[in-house]
């Protein structure tokens, strides 16, 4: 018998993340590296740890092995506790049936037994493709205080962008009266962040009803929230005003990385009261050689830098040789840029090698991407906007 938990978190790690192209051809989106030493999933996980939530179920049906080995015992996030922890929950077969996750709501439905073990009062639903620091405990307090059945975190987006989001229309007391998915003429600019807190008994009831409806697409935004509204359940908006960045596309991932190069970034990763934890590989300290030129860049453990790095991020274990130039780019863990090579406005994925005098990306135009473990041959060029992975799909 597991100990009762007040709140259990379920993280929808989703599928392949096809909008991230070749960056997710070998790994699930939440495992994509960010900011030099983090992975996207470190943000919701660290938020959980900092909010005092110590049971996190991670729902994925794509390459669970990588995520499992990344989580290990959960120790990096202080989630290696006897009474909880971090659990990867892929779909599985039961006696007579078993299916892939049909939608976000179905993924939770298939894991009702997992949640029920902890007999929680509340369930926090998270997604794994945003960079943000958020106190879920404060949101839970709000949920309890308002006596809501469900609380949806919202964030004000620029009006001109509102039609790209799920928009919550509320009354004066933050009670949601209407939900519109990507409205042509938005009535408000309160966009759903995909962060929900449900009272467990209500969620369970609606998940079971939704599953019984053959016409449902088993999705939180399309089905669960609208049916709860139709039944006049109490749904409350919780306004979040901090930094929040979607990293679901190549360009937004690049932008989110560039954001933390500002003098005073909107998201403070130095904040000791809200640390972002990550699995740490125990590399040597970074070594900056004689002749290196660094300006407005972030460099981390295991790097060896002898070249020029401007407005860029060098992740764990990166080597930049003498005479190499890195500008406006993100080098993911283990990348090796050889002498004379020039990388501009690019994302270079893990363990890729940029050969001598090669050219990747251009000062203007779309972001160039070099795939995981790919070698760009010496003297060759990868143009702006190209996703370079010669043997992709092979």
């Amino acid at each position, binding site marked *: 018998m597991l100990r009762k938990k007040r709140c259990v978190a379920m993280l929808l790690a989703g599928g392949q993340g096809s909008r991230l192209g070749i960056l997710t051809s070998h790994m699930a989106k939440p495992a994509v590296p960010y*900011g030099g*030493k983090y992975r996207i999933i470190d943000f919701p996980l660290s938020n959980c740890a900092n909010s005092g939530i110590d049971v996190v179920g991670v729902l994925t049906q794509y390459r669970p092995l990588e995520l499992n080995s990344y989580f290990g015992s959960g120790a990096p996030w202080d989630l290696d506790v006897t009474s909880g922890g971090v659990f990867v929950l892929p779909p599985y077969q039961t006696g007579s049936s078993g299916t892939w996750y049909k939608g976000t709501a179905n993924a939770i439905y298939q894991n009702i037994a997992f949640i029920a073990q902890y007999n929680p009062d509340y369930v926090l639903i998270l997604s794994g493709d945003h960079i943000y620091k958020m106190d879920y405990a404060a949101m839970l307090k709000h949920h309890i205080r308002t006596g809501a059945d469900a609380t949806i975190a919202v964030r004000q987006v620029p009006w001109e962008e509102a039609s790209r989001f799920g928009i919550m229309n509320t009354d004066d007391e933050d009670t949601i009266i209407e939900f519109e998915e990507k409205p042509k003429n938005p009535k408000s600019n309160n966009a759903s962040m995909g962060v929900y807190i449900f009272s467990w008994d209500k969620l369970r009831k609606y998940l079971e009803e939704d599953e019984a409806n053959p016409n449902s697409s088993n999705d939180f935004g399309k089905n669960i929230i609208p049916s709860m509204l139709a039944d006049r359940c109490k749904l409350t908006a919780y306004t979040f005003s901090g930094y929040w960045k979607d990293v679901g596309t190549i360009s937004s991932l690049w932008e989110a990385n560039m954001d933390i190069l500002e003098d005073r970034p909107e998201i403070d990763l130095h904040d000791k009261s809200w640390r972002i934890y990550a699995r*740490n590989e125990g590399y040597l300290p*970074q070594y*900056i050689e004689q*002749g290196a030129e*660094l300006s407005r860049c*972030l460099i981390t453990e295991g790097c060896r830098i002898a070249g020029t*790095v401007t407005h860029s991020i060098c992740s764990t274990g990166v080597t930049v040789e003498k005479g190499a130039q890195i500008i406006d780019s993100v080098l993911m863990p283990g990348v090796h840029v050889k002498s004379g090579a020039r990388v501009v406005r690019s994302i270079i994925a893990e363990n890729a090698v940029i050969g001598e005098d090669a050219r990747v990306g251009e000062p203007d135009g779309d972001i160039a991407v070099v795939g995981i473990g790919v070698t760009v041959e010496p003297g060759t060029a990868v143009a702006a906007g190209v996703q370079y992975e010669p043997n992709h799909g092979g």
Partner: protein
Amino acid sequence: MSDIMGIIYTGEMDTRLRELTAVRAIASVPILARYRVIDFPLSSMVHSGIRDIGVIMQRNYRSMLDHLGSGKEWDLHGKRNGLTILPPFSTKDSVGVYEGMLDALHSNLPYLRSCKEKYVVITNSFMLYNADFEDMVEQHEKTGADITLMYTKDPGVRRSGQGKYCEVQPDGQVTQIEVDPITNRFDNTMLEVFCMTRELLISLIDLSTSRGQYHFTRQLLRNAVNDKSMKLYGYECKSRVWAIDSVEAYYKCSMELLDPENRASIFPEDRPVLTKLRDEMPTRYAPGSHVSNSLIADGCVIEGTVENCILFRSVRIGKGAVIRNSIVMQDGRVSPMAEVDHTIMDKQTIIRESTRLIGAANYPVLVSKGLTV
């Protein structure tokens, strides 16, 4: 399952490290941007497959307890075995202050008896090296020695009037030992790393302490060589060795390890040195920063000039500040326009704006923990 257990003795004399050891034992002196000295012997043991490790503490061990914790970072937090902290305690025979290593081992006989391994490796905690103890024990078995001791020919660790040296025959036998000579007659400096069977160690501890002998090398080993009562063999350490036995030695070692080749000898890629982790963001290099030949940990913000330096975690170097040939420990701050050269800044020290602090290569300035200059 490894048949070797490890003991790390951290009770070394540390007066020559001045303020560096005012608040900590040598074993927990911060070194090379993110490590503590004890990480080196401890990591060597872990990579040699040793799963049962006892750390004998003597004084100022609060920072070491904090550093080692449950042994998680070294994967030593298991149920069947792992890290055992052996703090001093007073009994009817002892007041908890050890006379020497044998005395310390004597106090911890119950721990030694409770372990199951056949062999024991004992090491000091003031030297930086990277050794394969499995290989050492293998040689120990082959030669049929009673005790095998590790030595190095590295000239950097020889000290006039200090240190333990031994004569090693071509077949590996140790025939003479000298302690603290003004001029050493043998080029082999002992590391104070020994291996033997656990059973032999237990009987030697009992025998010696009952005769009032508390020092392992000075008394027990020297006597054993002189009266040929035991077979002693030497095992040459395959990595470079640095001894952290004075402020000057600490400084020299740090500067030498800025050289990538030196670093490679004690940081082999397949045997990384493990240490306690702190989750810091990557280091930020501002426009206008100049950095050259420096080893830098995460969490720093660098806006000034840094040459030939070692910066620990969360160090700030202000705009227009210049720091050369120096070591800045965790949370140190060099304010804008300050100039620092040949200086060791202990943890949480601050150099105020436009201050100049210049030491010499053979006598670095040492700023004690928490001070503001």
